[in-house]
């Protein structure tokens, strides 16, 4: 069924033109929501090691104690990625995580001291995370999201990033 049968092209173009300014008009957003969606995009542009059937859920672990961030991250579980549902939970050393969000140096040290460097996409929210073995360091500079990528750490975890993500990194350790 062709959409253009019901909506002439011009009307579709106008609808699109009307929608685009709306999308581009987002100038501000709350920090927890922006962190969660950036985290989701890191996952989107990462090729994770094949450690499960394609239909198996992706396990997202959040090592954070900020209630609003936890709530925002949990909302990601309603949005499958490449057909795989997301399961978001608080970090637990016993859990098998595909990606880990790490709030602080103390949490990262506890993770590394407990089970060694995890074989997962790690995203840290404190300055110096990539220098301490983390893969992506997410920070805010003058209110805008910025990220650094540690490629050797990613390779060690069996993760490959798309050039689209690498191109936007503020700092790329290679």
């Amino acid at each position, binding site marked *: 069924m062709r959409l253009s049968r019901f909506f002439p092209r011009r009307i579709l173009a106008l609808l699109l033109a009307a929608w685009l300014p709306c999308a581009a008009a987002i100038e501000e957003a709350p*920090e927890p929501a922006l962190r969660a969606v950036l985290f989701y995009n890191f996952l989107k542009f990462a090729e994770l090691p094949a450690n499960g059937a394609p239909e198996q859920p992706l396990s997202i672990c959040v090592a954070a104690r900020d209630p609003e961030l936890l709530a925002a991250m949990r909302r990601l579980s309603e949005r499958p990625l490449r057909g795989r549902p997301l399961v978001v939970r608080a970090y637990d050393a016993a859990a098998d995580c595909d990606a880990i969000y790490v709030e602080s140096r103390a949490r990262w040290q506890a993770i590394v001291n407990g089970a060694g460097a995890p074989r997962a996409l790690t995203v840290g929210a404190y300055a110096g995370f990539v220098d301490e073995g983390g893969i992506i360091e997410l920070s805010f500079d003058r209110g805008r999201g910025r990220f650094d990528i540690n490629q050797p750490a990613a390779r060690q975890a069996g993760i490959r990033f798309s050039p689209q993500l690498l191109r936007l990194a503020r700092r790329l350790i290679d």
Partner: protein
Amino acid sequence: MHKKLALSLLMLCPLPVLGAAGDADIDRLMPLSLEQLVEVDVSISTYSKQQMSKAPSVVSLITAEDIRATGATNLMDVLRSVPGVYVKQNLFAFRPLITLRGAPGNNVLLMVNGAPMRDLLWSNGIYWKGLPASIIERIEIIRGPGSALFGADASAGVINVITHTAAPIKHSEAGLRAGSYDSQAGWLRHGGNWNGLDVGVTAELSTTDGHRPTISPDRNGDTGKANYAWDNQDLRFSLAGGHWRLLADYQRQDDVGTGLNGAGVLDPLNESDSRQYGLALHYDNPGFAPDWGLNAVARYRDVKYSSGNGFITLAPPTREYLDAAERQAGLELSGLYTGLRGHALRIGGGAAWNETYGVRQVNPPNPAFPIPEQSRRDLYLFLQDVWSLADDWELTAGLRYDEFNDFGSATTPRLALVWQTSERLTSKLLYAEAFRAPSYQELYFQTAANTPNPNLEPERSRTWELAFDYLASDRLKLGLNLYRFKRTDLISGSGGTFQNFGSFTVRGLELEARWQATPSLLFGGNLTLLDQDDSPAEDVNVPDEALHLRMDWAFRPRWVWDVQAHWFGRRSLPAGDPRDELGSYSLVDTTLRYRHDRNWEFAVSVRNLLDEDAWDYSSKSLPNNLPLPERNFYAEVRYSF
């Protein structure tokens, strides 16, 4: 025709309203590309709220969006709805005096961009009437002691007003407002770039006749209207580049009608004025060296007051004149060290210097009490450590030492234990000591009523608090805190000469709720209960109970309707005042806002909608108290560009 259609479709774009619920934020952000996501700004409100929710204190944050929604036009309108705050209006010039947790204004440290606004002679200026709302980006309020970080006069709390400055100003705006009491205001806010530097400018000019309450009768038995007219100019300039920021401000109040003199005599003629300017240079570099961040600031401020055409005297009716000025300078340097595992250690120090000058007194009937010119110097050191004890536990320990050249020293410690009890509950146990510096008047200024005492000690305080923040659901946030606030070595002049004496204890409860019922409907409120010692040290005209309720409803796209109700309980009068205590009163304010498009916005606001007969304390020498403004309104238009 198609252009018209495209335009009409464009008009369907949802405009941001209120603080939308979390689901809506994720929905809005999900369609964006990564390139677009890194261009989205963190909204100031949530960014700051995040920072403050982690703070080892009980805090309130009021954003520019809150201020605009509620229709507040002045800082004082905003503070009125903060738990524990009661803004008293003074008979003389209708000056606002901020009280917090039952303590008078000299226990509340008011700062603008981190610079203290106090002065030696009059605390916050003799004609100071707050700040225009258009210049405010946000207000951070620590409800509780702040001396371990900020030094003197922070026993009850700290109010830090952050103004719109370079770099954060993203939208230029011009506005006009007109309303009751022949009030008019115009303002401009602009942010831009000049030679690679961010530039910010804000300006507001306003004039009003004031609400002209009828004083019936005054101290001399005459009946008339108090002249509370005033004109205000507020100009601010900022420049930011790299790690540096330069802030400059100029404020002037002209033709300030004092209404009545301090003795309660109507003065229809007096037009006083004051002006102040300030300069501050900030250096903030979080990556100054490995594991070290560095912050430094140098400040200068000059304040001048004049009685203009003179204050009326009690008898015989003639005019007395008082002009005075003050210079203030300060320098502070601090470093944040994060090289120790689990610790964030801040160490710093500074110097502050105040000096009165240009005192001119002409007092024909009684020239006996000259104001001496004096200076005060404060040298201080502070240390604070935020220690992540475990995954869910954080301990903040701080200590500050102040050495004053006139009344001695003060050491103020603080401890704060923050426990992330569960994913939804944060618990805090706080202890802090604080102090209030003896005022210039208490130390040096002989008056008809009091003799100064240069040997006074600072007033001291100790506060214990237990606070809980609970995210009941994604849409409902609750806060509860209980505290015990004890002030000792209180300074009183009731015996003639100022002396340190006795103590005063307040136990209090503050309960807050914020419920985003739907993406377009927000309810908020707070309740304050105080249990004050039955002692002569109790501050007069402070209610033991207060309740605030607020609703914001975006009932149609582009329209937002805000309603606020404030209820204040009964207030006591000073010992020996034969009148009945001041009754409770409630005020309802409502604001309707319409955003026509990306450029134009219109609003109308009615204050004291129900025309409540409300009063503040006047003076023992008058038979009646001071009437507060009756129902009044304004309309405004804003243009963003």
